[in-house]
């Protein structure tokens, strides 16, 4: 009998879940078990600063809590997500495994830590805080469960420090993307951010831009909205500014391999924005001669979108059309665990996706983009 028999050398149980059958979740929010858990990774100078002055995030009507009261109790958490052993939702790896990774057959989970460091007005502190978040992800999550993949959190408003952070962590494949929130200080195509794009391209790392509750500006261009429902709708506005700014500033003419993932900003708005950009470009392209091709081409090549919360159109076929217009190779499944608007991979799409599209959206697109098979 041949000792090279592939079938007989397969470990028990591997046949029930063939390789490639799992789900990649592109939006998991890991939490700290205590308010000081991340701060312990700060250098002494900043630990002292935080204990003396605290942390102030920009443009928040309140300090250290989300600007809008969300579903109570728990500020917008899934009501069943509190770990039985205590602590905040998504602060306990054991319970995260049970409730999310194992229950939903998650082959890889991409962490989106929503680092306050990216939005701290004291930018030196912000940079130190991002480094602390990165160390915390390694120690608490990615080294303990190989399914979990981290985000290099950076203080994007100080591009030099952001690049230094990327250089420090990019070699470690526990990190598969660079995390930047969507409400940046200036439109994201501006040259002040280009050193970050250069580093992202050098290390072949996509930049994930997650819609956060906080940011350097109000949540609508006219100021703060009244209700949480409005804030939730406003998550889809900054991504449109990002797309428009990056394309029209010529970012993708310079950085031809740069890849941007827009996380939790919705996706149904993408086709009409592309149509509008192309129409205006035909008329006004002399103003932006560095934009050499129809904007929709750059959009198609450089942007990816996570799905949660999947838009639910009145007629299911409308959503299928939308997915076809964007391209099923550009959408990536996400749960948003442990937030209340969680999507379950087996139930999130209320439409009949083809087998190929389903596999691409639930797994393969993310495996390729984040290089999860390497």
């Amino acid at each position, binding site marked *: 009998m041949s000792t090279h028999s592939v079938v007989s050398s397969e470990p028990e149980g591997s046949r029930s879940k063939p390789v490639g059958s799992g789900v990649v979740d592109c939006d998991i929010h890991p939490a700290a078990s205590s308010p000081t858990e991340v701060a312990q990774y700060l250098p002494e100078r900043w630990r002292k600063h935080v204990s003396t002055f605290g942390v102030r995030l920009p443009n928040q009507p309140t300090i250290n809590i989300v600007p809008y009261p969300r579903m109570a109790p728990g500020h917008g958490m*899934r*009501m*069943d997500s509190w770990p039985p052993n205590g602590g905040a939702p998504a602060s306990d790896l054991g319970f995260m495994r049970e409730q999310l990774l194992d229950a939903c057959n998650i082959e890889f989970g991409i962490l989106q830590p929503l680092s306050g460091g990216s939005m701290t007005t004291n930018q030196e502190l912000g940079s130190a805080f991002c480094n602390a978040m990165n160390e915390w992800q390694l120690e608490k999550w990615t080294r303990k469960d190989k399914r979990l993949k981290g985000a290099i959190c950076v203080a994007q408003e100080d591009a030099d420090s952001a690049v230094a952070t990327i250089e420090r962590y990019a070699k470690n494949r526990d990190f598969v993307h660079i995390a930047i929130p969507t409400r940046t200080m200036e439109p994201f195509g501006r040259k002040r951010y280009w050193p970050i794009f250069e580093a992202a391209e050098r290390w072949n790392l996509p930049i994930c831009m997650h819609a956060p509750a906080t940011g350097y500006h109000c949540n609508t261009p006219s100021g703060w909205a009244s209700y949480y429902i409005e804030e939730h709708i406003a998550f889809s506005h900054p991504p449109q500014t990002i797309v428009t700014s990056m394309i029209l500033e010529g970012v993708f003419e310079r950085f031809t391999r740069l890849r941007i993932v827009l996380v939790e900003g919705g996706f149904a708005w993408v086709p009409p924005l592309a149509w509008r950009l192309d129409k205006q470009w035909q008329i006004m392209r002399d103003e932006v001669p560095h934009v050499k091709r129809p904007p929709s081409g750059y959009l198609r090549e450089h942007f990816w979108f996570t799905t949660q919360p999947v838009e639910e159109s009145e007629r299911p076929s409308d959503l299928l059309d939308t997915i076809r217009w964007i391209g099923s190779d550009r959408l990536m499944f996400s749960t948003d665990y442990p937030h*209340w608007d*969680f999507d*379950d991979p087996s*139930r999130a799409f209320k439409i009949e996706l083809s087998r190929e599209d389903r596999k691409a959206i639930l797994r393969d697109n993310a495996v390729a983009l984040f290089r999860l098979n390497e």
Partner: protein
Amino acid sequence: MSRHVVARVGEIAPGQRKILEVSGRRIGVFHSNGEYFALLDRCPHQGASLCSGMLVSLVDSSEPGEYRMSRQAEMLRCPWHGWEFDIRTGQSWCDPAKVRVKTYLVTVEPGAELAKGPYVATTYSVTVEDDYVLVEI
């Protein structure tokens, strides 16, 4: 259709619920304002454990600045996405014609009556002195 003993009267306190498996289905039995209700423990939206959700009142409004509270503790709010269901009918508040969760008939009967049968009581030994909550499935 069969009738199942799911609780002894007094076991589910007012405002509380009991989630259990009956005939292979997970159901929630609620005791609200002196009445009992039973629903399938599965949200028709994305499959969450609906019966772990909060019982809330119905809030509605005739115009901005005005609101009315009614139906105290008769709306069941899903712990995931907050979809609300009427515990009397199982109808969803947002789309009552199309979206509903299965409800079951609940009755309270004295043990003396039950002793005559037929009923299914896998976890209860029915005594004639007590009253019981039954669900018809």
